[in-house]
């Protein structure tokens, strides 16, 4: 038998299409976009996505797309580990599962059994569910929760469509969180107060080591600055903060870079959170994900959570809070 080196396929060279999504116009649009990809019809997305013992790392290198139709629930209560920014009705939805980026600390590695990316094409059902929820009062909705929606915009333009949907729903505020740097995709959209664009930032050294396939933080920051200048509500998220060697200098420098790049006083707010993760997810991540020191740090175990000790947590958040307090009012600094 000839010896050979392992060669992964191109990302998205395979697209699984669920029977229920087969005739949807969004499916046709995505298939046109990937006309060279192989298409495989499937009964249900979970036949691919939820099976046991998947090769997570190889899938992450060359993920397949799974086009599916969502049924049942469209809105979820926010996790206890995420900030709600004072909103009483804080929900998230899942328009996609998984992310094009490959962050070593990402909880999705522990949450989902597959690294393939699921896109739910029936956006109209999400809109209908949101309308129904809005009838009961104002709603704060995180759109880019178990994915990075703007990073998928070249595949399926959901960010743009949600912003347009939100514009005419006064009771609705959406948060769209990303590590993407391509603000130009949205530059032609008139800003709306109903949408908060949120960028997650890390020190360059942290991003280089732990945030594979993401744009450098300097580019993300430039995108955030452009959005701010254009009149958008912009949130910056330093989350997760990692206690890596030299973390004090790295995070202090990041805040300085932010203050230089944009008018921090105009920011909607800043959200800070040290690394924290569900202990079961961490266990799964050690088995599935590419091994990195973040996964093997001696975290303290607090009920279902693995995170830094209370002392470490305090020192990390105190430093960042004091750095940001020089540029932004204290009431706009949220600590998770």
């Amino acid at each position, binding site marked *: *038998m000839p010896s050979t*080196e392992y060669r992964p396929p*191109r990302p998205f060279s395979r697209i699984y299409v669920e029977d229920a999504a087969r005739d949807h116009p969004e499916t046709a649009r995505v298939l046109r976009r990937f006309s060279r990809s192989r298409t495989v019809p499937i009964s249900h997305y979970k036949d691919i996505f939820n099976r046991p013992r998947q090769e997570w790392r190889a899938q992450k290198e060359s993920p397949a797309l799974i086009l599916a139709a969502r049924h049942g629930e469209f809105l979820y209560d926010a996790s206890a580990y995420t900030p709600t920014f004072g909103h009483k009705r804080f929900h998230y939805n899942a328009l996609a599962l998984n992310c094009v980026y490959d962050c070593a600390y990402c909880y999705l590695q522990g949450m989902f059994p597959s690294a393939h990316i699921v896109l739910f094409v029936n956006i109209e059902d999400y809109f209908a569910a949101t309308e129904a929820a809005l009838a009961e009062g104002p709603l704060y909705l995180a759109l880019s929760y178990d994915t990075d929606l703007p990073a998928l915009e070249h595949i399926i333009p959901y960010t743009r469509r949600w912003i347009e949907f939100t514009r005419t729903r006064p009771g609705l505020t959406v948060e769209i969180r990303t590590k993407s740097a391509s603000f130009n995709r949205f530059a032609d959209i008139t800003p709306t107060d109903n949408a908060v664009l949120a960028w997650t930032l890390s020190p360059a050294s942290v991003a280089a080591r732990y945030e594979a396939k993401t744009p450098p933080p300097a580019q993300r920051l430039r995108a955030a600055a452009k959005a701010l200048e254009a009149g958008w509500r912009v949130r910056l998220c330093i989350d997760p903060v990692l206690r890596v060697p030299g973390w004090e200098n790295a995070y202090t420098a990041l805040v300085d870079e932010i203050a230089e790049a944009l008018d921090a006083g105009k920011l909607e707010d800043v959200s800070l959170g040290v690394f924290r993760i569900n202990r079961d997810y961490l266990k799964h991540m050690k088995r599935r994900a590419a091994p990195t020191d973040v996964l*093997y740090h001696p975290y303290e175990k607090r009920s279902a959570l693995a995170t830094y000790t209370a002392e470490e947590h305090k020192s990390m958040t105190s430093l960042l809070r004091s750095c940001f307090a020089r540029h932004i009012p204290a009431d706009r600094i949220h600590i998770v």
Partner: protein
Amino acid sequence: MIILHTALAAEARPLIRRLGLKPGPGAPAPRLMVGDGTALVVSGTGRVRAAAAVAAAWTRLDATGHAPSAILNTGLCGAADSGRHPRGSVFVINACTDTTCGRRYYPDILLRHSLPEAGLHTFDKVIHSPEEARSGVRTAPELVDMEAAGVFEAGTLFLPASHVHALKIVGDALTDARFVTAADVESLIDDAIESITAFAAALRAFAASSEKSGRVLDESEERALGEAMDALRLTATQRARLSAAARHYRLLHDAPPSPVLAAFAARPPKSKNERAQALDRLLHALNGV
């Protein structure tokens, strides 16, 4: 080690010749041939025999310390549309339906290949026409055979869906199967042998790569870790903590933890108290940030 599976001896013969396979260990049935990193099992016709043969081959190889890391079913199939799937053409199977129960298998194809792909339906009887293939199934069959679903069912008991595949060569158009002789079968496999061996090699490379990709410590580092654990006479919980700390050190510093471990292993504790103190110091030395 990769297991190749064929239903017929005539399908196996060209592979045995090409790969220089010799009779393998264990019972005479099912017939198992082995060579360098490759085993081949011949099951006879049918889904159940295929599943049983793959399971038997797995067990026999595992017992000799050669746990297989991939399984490839290959051999002839019929085509419902000979225009799209002409005789002699080779297809990687991307979906396989077991027509007895309707269950579908989707091999997770995580390796690059240049062959065309197709869906396959596995029947429990010989199919004599495209119309017969289409009757009673939910999706119109492209290719049909009598074994692949059994290989997927048994194979995925042992391995992930990315490690169990089928590569089929079109032998007939469902109207002329009885005219395919053993010599024809050998000839068709011979013609496809480059595609089969290349795909099998790619599959083996993928399986080898996935085995390595989650490893943090190499063999010598694992040995140093084990020696430190034994010298310190650690409990199971303490061993787990030390194992995580050694991995943390390796990944954070991109350097072997062996020197740190060896320094502690050289001074075995004389009491439980000393052991606890030594472990604390060792964990601090490995984890200290």
